[in-house]
């Protein structure tokens, strides 16, 4: 059975370079949490601190009620699946999976039975005598997972275990992994830079940005209510348009009705930036209204990536991408509608955005 993991104010530096700044993450027993972020955001460092491979300079890590901040790696009850798999080139599959059990002093017959069980569970039957070099990438990944699961760990740490698999295999492995983790009731912490993978696997996602927690919450929550421009951008809302906020209202194109903002999420009055996803915006028919923001633009380009058309629309000197059901003629004047729920507004704090806001005619 899994135990809860609590990370409190964890600070880690490599030499003089700080990597994690007072990061706090709480993971419930049996919960699957994904640490999501681009490379260099500190997610792997956080995972390796929990595993005991990295010494924090401050903060506390607890497993259940136990303080493991300074415990050696072998006394943490956390089993890790490495990104490189870290299989032992000189050890057979059976030896590798049974390694943790042999360390725990199990007798040979019991180890053999458990290894057999793991091989069956991971569909590796008959490969027990093979060396890592004689396995495919997918098989290696399952051996690494088998080694970690064989010891019935309280905490399973996954460091991008699927980044070395091809896309086709990955899809299947995700669902297997999720089902296994649920059946076994293990607490799982998964590091990934793949947004979709995090969304599919995790109960909760923690998004990291430059060594700090940018936001955490359920996948749906993060998707619907990103707390910052960084999170919105990372979760696919890559289109940006400058907007003015005044009296709790956001103004789109001139002559179109402004959008009343949810008081809890409205940015302060002044220049702000609207983020939205290509698949959540649409083109409006002449005279059609929408509960949201409307912009005027011209079609710069249409492309067909499959399923729907994707149009690049030029609005106020910027290009945004929108999914449309049919091809739209290049150069056509269009009205672009972004529904209220899909419009994520953040104060334009970055200098380049300030400058952009200044050149808009509305200013």
């Amino acid at each position, binding site marked *: 059975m899994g135990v809860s993991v609590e990370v409190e104010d964890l600070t880690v530096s490599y030499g003089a370079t700080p990597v994690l700044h007072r990061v706090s993450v709480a993971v419930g027993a049996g919960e699957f949490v994904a640490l999501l972020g681009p490379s260099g955001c500190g997610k792997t460092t956080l995972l390796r601190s929990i*595993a*005991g*491979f990295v010494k924090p300079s401050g903060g506390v890590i607890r497993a259940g009620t136990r303080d493991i901040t300074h415990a*050696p*790696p*072998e006394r943490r009850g*956390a*089993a*890790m699946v*490495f990104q*490189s798999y*870290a*299989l*032992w*080139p*000189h050890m057979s599959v059976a030896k590798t999976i049974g*390694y*943790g059990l042999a*360390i*725990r002093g199990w007798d040979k017959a019991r180890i053999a039975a458990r290894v057999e069980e793991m091989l069956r569970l991971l569909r590796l039957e008959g490969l027990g005598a093979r060396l890592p070099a004689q396995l495919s990438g997918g098989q290696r990944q399952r051996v690494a997972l088998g*080694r*970690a699961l064989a*010891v019935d760990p309280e905490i399973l740490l996954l460091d991008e275990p699927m980044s070395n698999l091809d896309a086709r295999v990955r899809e299947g492995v995700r669902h297997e992994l999720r089902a296994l983790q649920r059946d076994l009731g293990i607490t799982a912490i998964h590091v990934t830079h793949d947004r979709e993978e995090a969304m599919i696997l995790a109960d909760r996602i923690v998004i990291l940005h430059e060594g700090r927690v940018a936001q955490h919450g359920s996948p749906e929550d993060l998707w619907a209510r990103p707390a910052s421009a960084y999170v919105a951008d990372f979760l696919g809302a890559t289109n940006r348009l400058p907007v003015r906020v005044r009296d709790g209202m956001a103004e789109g194109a001139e002559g179109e009705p402004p959008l009343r903002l949810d008081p809890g999420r409205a940015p302060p009055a002044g220049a702000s930036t609207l983020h939205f996803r290509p698949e959540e915006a649409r083109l409006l028919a002449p005279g059609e209204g929408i509960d949201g923001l409307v912009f005027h633009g011209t079609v710069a380009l249409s492309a067909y990536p499959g399923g729907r058309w994707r149009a690049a629309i030029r609005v106020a000197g910027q290009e945004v991408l929108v999914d449309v059901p049919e091809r739209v003629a290049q150069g056509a004047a269009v009205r672009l509608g972004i529904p209220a729920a899909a419009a994520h507004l953040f104060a334009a704090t970055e200098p380049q955005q300030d400058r952009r806001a200044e050149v808009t005619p509305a200013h």
Partner: protein
Amino acid sequence: MSRDSVFWWLPRGLLLGLFAFFVFGPLVNLVLWSVAEAWFWPNRLPSQYGFRFWERVFRPQGQAMESLWLSIWIASLTTLLCLAVSVPAAWALAKARLRWRAAILLLFLLPQAFPNLPVYINVARIFFTFDLNGTVAGVVLVHAAHGLVYSIWIATAAFAAVEEDVELAARNMGAGPLTAFRTVTLPLAAPGIAASAVFVFLESLDEFTASYFVGAPEVRTLPLLLFSAAAGGNMQIAAITALILLVPSVLFMLLVERFLRAEVLAKVGR
């Protein structure tokens, strides 16, 4: 120019022949001497062949066999001593920061930078005060000081070639630092360490200068016997001794060639 042309194959053939002569000529001379029972100037070839000298060397009470076993004994002790020092040292060095590692590795290379002769004469003088001259222990010590260069450099490379995650995976599975070292790190570095051991063994087996100043005349290793035989004009005994010395070298070189992978060699000195 066609490959059948004389101008194509003749220069190549000559060059190859010349090359072969440089490599194998001395060997052929050794073999000839070892079976020559009578070979006097100005004869080009021995006038009488036979295995009389071989029989003399391999006679149970013959000095050559005694020296051979002594040499192997000294080489084995030297190898063990070097491994006992270099395995822990190399493991620590492989983990150390790169800058320090380079400095320390260079330090081990330093004794090689000086001319051997004055170094060994001084060593002999120092050993004299400790009663180490003319003892096996003394010879083993000087051989080990020399062999440590190889063993530390190669073993450090072997340990550095073991990925850190592989060792951490063992710790992660519940192994303490020593168990992880014994079950994962050491087996993975073993080929490189074995190669370093072979180098040390061969260096000790062939070593002459230090053995001469520290060991002679009480400790007569095979190279010392070879020297005195050759100096005394007994070319047959010298040739046979040299051929005997060749056997372990060739055997071990074949072993090393199998053991030492390119990845390990690429890390030597880094």
